[in-house]
């Protein structure tokens, strides 16, 4: 077996171990995976059975408006928060240093960490979509599904890279949740994740510069009953792509010296 094939098999195994470790850490699994699901249940119970007419005798349930925002939040929680906090802990505990002393290549280890994150994000997406649709009657459009999934995947990649990259600026593992939330929470309010407030132009412009709004807006675009085509919003995708590059550069800088000497 060639070395590359052996290494790819190693990545697969490592994803399994990462998954096992992730789900065993109850608190982590709760905040990362369950919180978006709880948001869905909460919003749905508040706005149960309410729907809005969209003309032509058709109507959509109110929940449909929240599902894209919940998904956007879920993507950020499962990728950015999970990576930033998890990686800071692994660095501070010296796990990264230990792994660096073994023959496992750094790329294989980081790929497995990312692979494991993809599994969690995908599961979260499936649970929110299925639960939203079948339990609460959210209107998931098949026509715009390609746009929805591409936006989601691009957002997940962007926030994963940013989550790893930011660890370089996290002083210690205890500070990681605070840093992650400080970076995310204020932006969620000016990025139209939950509700569309009438925001002062300055704030909404700030929101447009950062990657949360394009992710949320791109998802909402795909859920919008009036959207034609496959649900791709080029402005949102372009903004996310720029942030993906920023994230990859930050990630590469962190990976140059991932452990404390």
């Amino acid at each position, binding site marked *: 077996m060639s070395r590359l094939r052996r290494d790819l098999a190693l990545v697969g195994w*490592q994803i399994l*171990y990462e998954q096992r470790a992730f789900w065993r850490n109850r608190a982590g699994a709760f905040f990362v995976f369950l919180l978006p699901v709880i948001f869905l249940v909460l919003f749905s119970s508040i706005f149960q059975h309410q729907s809005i007419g969209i003309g032509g005798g058709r109507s959509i349930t109110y929940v449909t408006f929240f599902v894209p925002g919940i998904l956007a939040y879920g993507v950020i929680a499962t990728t950015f928060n999970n990576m930033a906090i998890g990686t800071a802990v*692994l660095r501070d*505990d010296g796990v990264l240093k*230990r792994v660096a*002393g*073994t*023959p496992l290549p750094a790329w294989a280890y980081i790929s497995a960490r990312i692979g494991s994150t993809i599994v969690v994000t995908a599961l979260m997406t499936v649970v929110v979509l299925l639960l939203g649709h079948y339990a609460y009657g959210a209107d998931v459009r098949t026509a715009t599904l390609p746009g929805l999934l591409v936006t989601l995947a691009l957002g997940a990649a962007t926030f994963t890279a940013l989550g790893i990259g930011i660890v370089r600026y996290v002083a210690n593992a205890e500070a990681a949740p605070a840093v992650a939330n400080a970076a995310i929470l204020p932006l969620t309010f000016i990025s139209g994740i939950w509700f569309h407030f009438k925001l002062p132009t300055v704030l909404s412009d700030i929101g447009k510069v950062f990657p949360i709004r394009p992710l949320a807006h791109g998802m909402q675009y795909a859920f919008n009953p009036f959207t034609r085509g496959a649900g791709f919003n080029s402005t949102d995708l372009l903004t996310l792509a720029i942030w993906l590059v920023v994230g990859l550069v930050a990630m590469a800088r962190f990976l140059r010296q991932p452990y404390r*000497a």
Partner: protein
Amino acid sequence: MNAIEVRDLHKSYGSLEAVSGVSFEVAMGEVFCLLGPNGAGKTTTVEILEGYRTRERGAVSVLGIDPAHGSRELRERIGIVLQSCGIQTSLTVAELIEMYGRYYEHRRGVDELIEMVELDAKRDTRASDLSGGQRRRLDLALALVGEPELLFLDEPTTGFDPAARRHAWSTIRALCQLGKTVFLTTHFMDEAQTLADRVAVMRAGAIVAVDTPRALGGRELRPSTIRFELPDAKAAEQLPPVEGEVMADGRSIAVRTHDTVRATAAITGWALERGIELEHFSVTQPTLEDIYLELTGEHEAAPA
């Protein structure tokens, strides 16, 4: 070929020269110990050998490979127990050994390793629920999982209770019998004495002595000291002539001599003949600790 060769190694952090011109070699199958106080440059030296740090100057070869190149081949052949190194705490002992084992081309079996470090009872316990000593034994198992030729042990028993330390020592000695080369750093004299074939004493970034624990710092050649107390100071004037130096402080006498057996016989014979009681009679050789404190210049700072 030597397992490790270091020539004129230099490393500074800013204006602080942590390692300045260190040279030594470690033979295959040898247990080599780097001994020195905190801040002497031990960790910097060993981390350069392990490939964690880069050097400024000097030549380093570990198993014939320059560790600065971060080669995977080298990492296949070495095992590392770091001073304090975390682990994925939600995985169990068996899972961790299995997981880390997969990283190596040649690996030892999970059961064999668990038995070797005596964690049989903790096989399915998560790392978070292990005691400190059990964690260190797991560390050792993980360092051994790739069947390394060379094992780095950075202060392997710091924080152990005396029983756990003796236990760890017997495990390490068992490893030496398997023909592994061991590079040990410690600041415990007894650890160096018990385990090492050769000891290098490091002080302020330089090696001040390298030798077997017995011979270190000319220990074998140094005089021993015979101490005792006489019933009264007057008796001191009647002591028999002995080779060496006799120091009297009132009733307390200290004799520093190279001819220990003859001097002891002369003194005790003299005392028995005259019916003089020698209180607190003792004969001591300089300990490794005495030599170490002298070499590292910590004599003054050390508590009596």
